[in-house]
């Protein structure tokens, strides 16, 4: 199976989307769902090939004299690819309910850019070298820009400007120099087990600077102070926030950092030189500070956005701890957090469509009107916090274990503190909705979200619970990573 196939469904569906257009919207959305299922099937084939130990790679396209574009599958990428393609299908189903229920304009453009972004995410997931990953990374920024500015009003244009500026400045100003530096020092940009920098003869100081350039240059990972775009981008329609800003875009960021740490620096190099020690405090600060900021936000999506920033920094922290256990935990957290957070975003969107409410303080008593949504919100919140019976437990456990393996219990304290904060800012939302009396008298009866949206919420919630009971396939897959 050539990983290039993963680019085919999302790209091929674009002409269909344009062709069907607004007038035949059922066909338009059906074609996207078909493409999504095809993509999922392709990713599944790649998964089984990788598990059975086959080499899965594409040909190469020589972009620069010594560096080429090339795709190949490795465990982390397969996991990310599966995740993104699965959630693409679910989000499309959800969007049908949301976009129609909300009467959004320019839906055709929306679905086109969405498909394009998914193709770029696939390229990122299967990138065989840093150059390919960088190309895909930039393409994701550009293809999601029209989604952020979808509404076309002043607020969304301002957010779009910030989005583009922060991400592009980070990637061109910091990440690209790091890549060129690596290319000059090591003579290659390939992802190799154990890293490519060990023979480059770089001093400890250079490696520390290089690592910092990578961590801060990858603005999508939203480590402070590069995080501002994420809350701003929440002006986008909720399905965009859900898939792109809780899963695809931000996860590409942390995925990039995980890949760079594992296959460019090599975890041994980072742990023996101790260079991560300079960056880790900032990452830990991000974990705590953004949780604290999340407290102060009354807007539901803004609170979820800050919660995302905090959770992303878990993964960055896991990468920088640079032990096999912590990196596995970080990679696992990509999936675990994705299902939890997408459930929460779906719920937020459902509340917006059905009740037209965006503020948390207005949700008192709304559990009676949207019990299913609110219950799913509760499960999703448990997933983010890391409490049974939801998925986040395992990844947090692994990251904590990795911290011990790295010989520093301090980072466990950070994790636990942030978990407490998670409980404090997430759980009150469903609790208020169920147990507090409503502010104004409400009409009795259920006003749940449109059926497709509700179906999507139910599905992600189910997966959230399933992953608690059956995390083993994922852990087995990540066990195939070649560390050295």
């Amino acid at each position, binding site marked *: 199976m050539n990983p290039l196939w993963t680019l085919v469904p999302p790209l091929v569906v674009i002409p269909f989307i344009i062709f069907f257009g607004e007038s035949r919207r059922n066909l338009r959305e059906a074609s996207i769902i078909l493409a999504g299922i095809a993509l999922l099937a392709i990713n599944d084939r790649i998964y089984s090939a990788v598990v059975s130990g086959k080499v899965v790679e594409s040909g190469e396209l020589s972009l*620069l*004299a010594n560096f080429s574009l090339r795709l190949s599958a490795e465990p982390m990428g397969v996991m990310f690819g599966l995740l993104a393609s699965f959630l693409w299908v679910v989000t499309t189903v959800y969007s049908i309910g949301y976009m129609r229920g909300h009467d959004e304009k320019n839906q055709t453009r929306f679905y086109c850019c969405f498909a394009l972004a998914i193709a770029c995410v696939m390229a990122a997931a299967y990138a065989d070298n840093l150059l390919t990953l960088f*190309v895909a990374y*930039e393409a994701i920024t550009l293809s999601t820009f029209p989604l952020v500015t979808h509404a076309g009003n002043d607020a969304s*244009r301002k957010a779009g400007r910030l989005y583009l500026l922060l991400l*592009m400045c980070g990637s061109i*100003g910091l990440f*690209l120099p790091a890549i*060129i530096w690596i290319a000059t020092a090591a003579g290659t940009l390939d992802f190799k087990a154990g890293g490519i920098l060990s023979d480059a003869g770089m001093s400890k100081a250079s490696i520390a600077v290089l690592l910092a350039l990578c961590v801060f240059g990858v603005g999508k990972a939203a480590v402070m102070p590069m995080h501002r775009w994420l809350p701003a981008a929440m002006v986008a329609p909720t399905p965009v926030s859900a898939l792109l800003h809780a899963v695809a875009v931000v996860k590409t960021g942390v995925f990039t950092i995980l890949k760079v740490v594992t296959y460019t620096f090599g975890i041994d190099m980072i742990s023996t030189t101790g260079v991560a020690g300079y960056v880790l405090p900032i990452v830990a600060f991000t974990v705590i500070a953004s949780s604290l900021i999340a407290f102060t936000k009354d807007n539901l999506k803004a609170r979820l956005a800050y919660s995302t920033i905090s959770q992303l920094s878990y993964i960055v922290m896991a990468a920088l701890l640079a032990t096999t256990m912590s990196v596995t935990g970080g990679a696992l957290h990509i999936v675990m957090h994705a299902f939890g957070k997408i459930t929460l975003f779906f719920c937020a969107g459902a509340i917006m469509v059905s009740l037209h409410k965006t503020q948390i303080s207005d949700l008192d008593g709304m559990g009676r009107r949207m019990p299913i949504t609110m219950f799913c919100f509760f499960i999703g919140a448990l997933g983010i916090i890391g409490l049974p019976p939801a998925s986040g437990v395992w990844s947090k456990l692994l990251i904590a274990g990795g911290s011990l393996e790295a010989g520093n219990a301090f980072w466990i304290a950070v994790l636990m503190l942030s978990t407490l904060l998670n409980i404090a800012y997430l759980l009150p939302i469903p609790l208020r909705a169920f147990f507090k009396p409503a502010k104004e008298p409400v009409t009795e009866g259920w006003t749940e979200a449109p059926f497709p949206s509700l179906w999507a919420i139910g599905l992600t919630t189910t997966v959230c619970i399933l992953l608690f009971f059956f995390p083993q396939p994922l852990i087995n897959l990540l066990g195939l990573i070649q560390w050295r």
Partner: protein
Amino acid sequence: MIADQLPALTIVLPMLAAPLCVLARRPLACWVIALCANFLAVLSAWGMFWQVRDDGVIRYALGGWAAPTGIEYYVDMMNATMLLLVSFISCVVLVYAYRSVNKSVQSAKHYLFYAAWMLCLTGLLGICITGDAFNVFVFLEISSLSMYMLIAFGNDKRALFASFRYLIMGSIGASFILIGIGFLYAATGALNMVDLAQRIPDAESQRAVLVAFSFLTIGLMIKSAVFPLHGWLANAYQHSPVAVTAFLAGTATKVSLYVLLRFFFSIFGPGYSFGSMFLNVVLLPAAVAGFLMLSLVAIFQTDLRRMLAYSSVAQIGYIIAAFCLASQSGLTAGIVHIINHGIIKTVLFMSVGCILYRVGHTHSNSLDNLFHKMPLTVTAFILSGLGLIGVPLTVGFVSKFSLISASMERGWWMIGALVLLSSLFAIVYIGRVVEIMLFRKSRNSTPEPVGRHEAPMMMLIPMYVLIGISIWFGVSGSTTLAVASEAAAALLGGYQ
């Protein structure tokens, strides 16, 4: 055999087309003549390119007179590439020019326009092909004089002033170059470039060579619009007919940069220019200040053409900075950027020309929601704008990646960092315009008629041909990098 006569044909064909245009008079006939001549020039440049690539340098004695007496055409990888680039861009823009010129130039003057265009092309190709220093000056004057004329065709009174201003600056530049060549002749007694290159090492100690070097440096800096001697460029680009701007932006300054390369690397040799004369001390600060300040200036321009003109000066700064590295990788980066920037800047000006054609002005602040009216044009603008920024998979990325890695190789970290900084400015000035075109709702109280009103196909197709090429060069950058690296090797290797 015709294959042996290609160097002469490349020059003679467009030169003959000019008087033919004057004889023919009718606009369409002139255009067909010019286009045919141009197309044949492209074919012969293409033929020469492959001859050089396969069999090595072509040395062609014009009129059969051998080198020291007669004029010699000397074609290596470097100028074969330039010839192909210049003739090809001219050909594509000429196709585009027909509709655009019909609208902006009085039809009674069309024959002069095409004649001047052909002369300009002759001059530019001649500069590239010749192996004789004085002949460079002659062709430089041919191209410059016809260029002043082309610029003055702009239908705005300010075009005359812009043309006059360019004439003054251009003449100063050209006289400096002439003085430089004169001194060289006095010091060495040679005008043939190969001879010059051989004799200069013996004459290096003479003050005349030093003076020649200084005059040439300043003269070439003016002609190639290196900051701070770029004053003529913005007006000329803004007010001339937009097809001319597209043609000039892709070729004129690039050819001057080629002459600069030829003199400093092949004739004087990098050891002399950058070793004993410390040329990089002069050029590098100018280049860096150029690309930083002019990118910044471009942000504040409200006229699209002026913005792109300043961005051109900034891009020339990148190219000069790459030359200053005086290494194989640095020259490769510079030459690749000559090719890449030549293509994308032409496309940008062509798309602005389409906007001018339909909208009637190029004030970036009143192009609200243009995307709905002219989707193809705006797409072209965005695609090449991304190239200007240097987004991966565009040609700009190939150039910038090689420039930055070349400067890191040399240990000049700062240059790499500053190049990136100015790329960030490029995000702002391109992004600002794109945002207006894509997302801003029209503020006019009377809504304009909505609906597609795309530029004519004859303007769109040539534009998309160039875009196709730029995408190809962006996705598979090693194609151009390989050519550029052979050209750089030819320059650094000196004359055989």
